């Protein structure tokens, strides 16, 4: 990264930011279209939103890499890849919302879709920001529309509870995060992450007295981001919020918001605080700390999910566990590690959005989210059963599906680091926990399949799909298979991502 500011003209800067700008304007357009569209013509607003997301994706493809606003806004492979994930999550969330906007939120379609797009804009800014203030703003722009969306069924007690809960906890975690940022700024005198990593390390080495302050900053930031990622012990909100929120929003939360948290984590810790992962700089060692959180996430998520009878709560706990797996890749701290994080998130996008889309289809039809009600579906709705089973198997990490490839990549990155001479032997234990808990996870994922397939009597329901949700399901299905059978093109891309990080300097 060149610390010298390149002289670029304003137009060039705007060009680089065009996907975000476009999507922001388009969100307003979506809200406006709702004003003019008839209540009966219920798909127009949704399709407008989908088209906007696709155009934003196209703009992203043509803008390419670059630096703007004095390196505050960077489009590097990391940002581009995660923007693809965010847009994908938004596309699928919008695509699976058509059933809901026909029934429950008929009168507020524009706001519903508009807020999803606003939140996506926030995520995209976050992915590109390279300093603390814009990163924080991106994170807030991501979260605030989600508070509203979680409480969107305003007549439904659970949904309102979910919105309030998410709001209170979100506000609290943002405060923690900001408090942590203030320590970082105080120590380094800069909000730019690259500069910060140099400043903090040199101050630490020359004065040896800021260790405790760094520890406080680490803990505050970890708590703040931990809430976004639903890493235990900051995970309590997730099941309640997922259960109450509209299902596509729960899906968007579990993939989009989680991916945004991951980007924020990667930027702050792997760039700003990179020097402090190793044991040499104790007591500021955040590596082991995050490792413990990740282990606890995998254990709690996978064990508690076994007992769930509501599929949305089950998926909530599963997403807690999946965050734990992703963090292993983060801790591997080499180019494979961050590449595995990106790849895992990409696969998770398809598997989890697909699973939630299927859950939405079922909920639209029956109004139920009980796993027990999925009984016998394989006989009345074979396509639905096959598709949901494949998503479940992918989440469980069974080859040749994407979930397996993702887990393999994460574990490979960790073992790679652990076999190197150095102080990373504890990664073996982390991988051990990850693998053991993935056996537990099989039980509850396969439980859904068992319900659909193993009963003699056929279900009383037959699933029907509207066009957008069918498209979403098929995209997810293709995604899960492609990432599992021919992941090379995606891995090629994710292997470039490490250039964004400090350790690329060492290469």
């Amino acid at each position: 990264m060149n610390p010298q500011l390149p002289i670029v003209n304003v137009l060039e800067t705007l060009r680089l930011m065009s996907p975000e700008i476009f999507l922001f304007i388009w969100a307003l357009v979506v809200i406006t279209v709702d004003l003019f569209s008839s209540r009966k013509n219920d798909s127009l607003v949704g399709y407008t939103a989908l088209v906007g997301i696709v155009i934003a994706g196209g703009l992203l493809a043509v803008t390419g890499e670059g630096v703007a606003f004095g390196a505050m806004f960077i489009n590097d492979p990391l940002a581009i890849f995660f923007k693809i994930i965010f847009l994908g999550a938004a596309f699928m969330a919008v695509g699976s919302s058509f059933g809901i906007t026909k029934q429950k939120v008929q009168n507020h379609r524009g706001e519903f879709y508009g807020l999803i797009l606003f939140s996506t804009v926030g995520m995209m800014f976050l992915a590109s920001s390279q300093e603390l203030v814009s990163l924080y703003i991106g994170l807030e722009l991501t979260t605030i529309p989600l508070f509203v969306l979680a409480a969107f069924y305003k007549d439904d007690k659970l949904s309102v509870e979910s919105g309030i809960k998410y709001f209170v906890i979100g506000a609290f975690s943002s405060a923690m995060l900001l408090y942590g940022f203030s320590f970082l700024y105080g120590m380094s005198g800069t909000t730019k992450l690259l500069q910060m990593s140099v400043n903090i390390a040199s101050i630490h080495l020359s004065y040896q007295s800021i260790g405790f302050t760094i520890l406080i900053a680490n803990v505050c930031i970890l708590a703040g981001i931990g809430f976004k990622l639903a890493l235990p012990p900051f995970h309590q909100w997730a099941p309640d919020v997922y259960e109450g929120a509209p299902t596509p929003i729960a899906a968007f939360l579990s993939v989009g918001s989680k991916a945004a948290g991951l980007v924020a984590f990667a930027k702050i810790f792997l760039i700003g605080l990179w020097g402090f992962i190793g044991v040499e700089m104790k007591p500021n060692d955040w590596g082991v700390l995050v490792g413990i959180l990740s282990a606890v996430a995998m254990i709690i998520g996978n064990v508690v999910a076994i007992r769930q009878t509501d599929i949305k709560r089950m998926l909530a706990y599963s997403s807690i566990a999946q965050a734990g797996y992703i963090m292993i890749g983060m801790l591997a701290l080499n180019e494979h590690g961050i590449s595995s994080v990106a790849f895992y998130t990409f696969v998770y996008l398809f598997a989890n959005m697909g699973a939630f889309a299927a859950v939405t289809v079922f909920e639209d039809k029956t109004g139920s989210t009980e796993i027990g009600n999925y009984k016998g579906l394989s006989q009345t709705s074979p396509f639905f059963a096959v598709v949901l089973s494949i998503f479940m198997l992918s989440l469980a990490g069974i080859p040749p599906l994407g979930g397996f490839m993702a887990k393999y990549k994460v574990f490979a990155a960790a073992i790679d680091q652990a076999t190197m001479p150095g102080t990373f032997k504890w990664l073996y234990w982390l991988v051990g926990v990850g693998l053991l808990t993935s056996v537990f996870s099989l039980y509850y994922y396969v439980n859904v399949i068992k319900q659909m397939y193993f009963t003699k009597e056929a279900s009383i329901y037959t699933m029907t799909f509207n066009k957008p949700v069918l498209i979403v399901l098929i995209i997810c299905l293709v995604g899960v298979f492609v990432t599992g059978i021919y992941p090379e093109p995606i891995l090629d891309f994710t292997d470039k991502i490490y250039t964004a990080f400090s350790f690329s300097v060492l290469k």
Partner: protein
Amino acid sequence: MVLSSLIFFPILGMIIVMLMPKDKDNLIRYTAVGISVIPMVISFWLTYDYFVNFSGTAAMAYVEGPFAWIPSLNVNYHLGVDGISVPMLFLTGLLSTISLIASFSIKIRVKEYFAFFLLLEAGMMGVFVALDFFLFYVFWEIMLVPMYFLIGVWGGPRKEYAAIKFFLYTLFGSIFMLVAILIMYFTSEPHTLNMLELIEHGGAMSYTLQMVCFIFFFIAFAIKVPVWPFHTWLPDAHVQAPTAVSVILAGVLLKMGTYAMLRINWPMFPDALQALSFWIAVLGVIGIIYGALVSLAQTDLKKLVAYSSVSHMGYCMLALAAYDSVTAITGVMFQMISHGLITGALFLMVGVLYDRAHTREIAVFGGLGSKLPVYTALMLMFSMAALGLPGMSGFVSEFMIFIGAFSSLNQYLVGISVLGVVLGAAYMLRMFQNVFLGEFNMAKWGGLTDINGRELLTVLPLAVLTLAVGIYPKPLADLMLATLDNLVQIMSR
């Protein structure tokens, strides 16, 4: 292309079956069997061709690749066979077709059944031809899904429990394998997943790392075999699974464990093998005696056959511990093949009886010999084969195992294991006596009919092969000799 076709014809068949109309049961059945005949014929031809052209050398034959599959992870598509995989392919091809024919008695959800079965066949073929660790792991895991469905949907009363138990158990083993594979990969220089190259590398690893990897691989494979004390999934899965699935389970899936030990575990870690071989032999002997004793106490025919598998696979473990003896290792291969043939046939026979009587309780039968002469004759033959009567394949393998093990293992241990033969005779003869001899209950079983043509078609090939291997085992031994010679040298380096 030969080896790939073994994998992809069943997958093609699965796709064809999935595209067929749901209610055309018979069409689906005949299509599935017809498609599975192709890999069977290929595997027969392969065995013959290997025998004629390659059996003199230990090198891999029909090698395909390595073709880059996922270059950034160094994963290649790399297939090849040698003397230990060719007989397994033969067995897989044969038993798959036979099981599919035996599956005609499946009446519900026929289409899904045959589709899953063909996917299972593809996975099994893949395991025996893969030379790349990643590929091997993928095939190893792919089989779990169809197996889970086959037990869970078409199984007996406790099918759900048995299916998930099988799935969880095997996956639990697989994760150990995955860690060991990753350690092997990252400690090898340059990083590789090629099994043949890793055999060289494994011998050079530090003693601790060898022990760790050996034990991890061993757990994964021992669960599949199953070695005592990892065997508890087997009786559940066997008893609940439909007949044809039991045949595949006993005939092919259990062999994957011992095959993988010979292919991966044993040659890669010579120091660890040397240090642990005594304990492996102990596990084997416990398996032999425990399996036999438990079989003796069974009241359910299928459970009896299932526990006898634990005992018979114990012989394999015992002989595998005698890794420096070519005779013992040849015995292992013979035992794998003969157990596949005999136990497969026994499960088929039990299935034939169950289809008619709807019970497998040994105590409720008696004197069936007078009513079902053909069936009884076949059952007699397979029981005798299972207890190791000379002239049958079981005798050849057990004889080789004892001779090989006696010369290179603790002789008291081998002495104890010979008791297993006596116990084997005891439970087989007890079963035969109670079911086929004695008073015939005309009122209850008067309506039973003898084995029909389709069922004979499934059992007779197995009978012929059991006899052929028992009477003239030399061709089979010659087929494997060069490979096993080389393998024993590598293992005892």
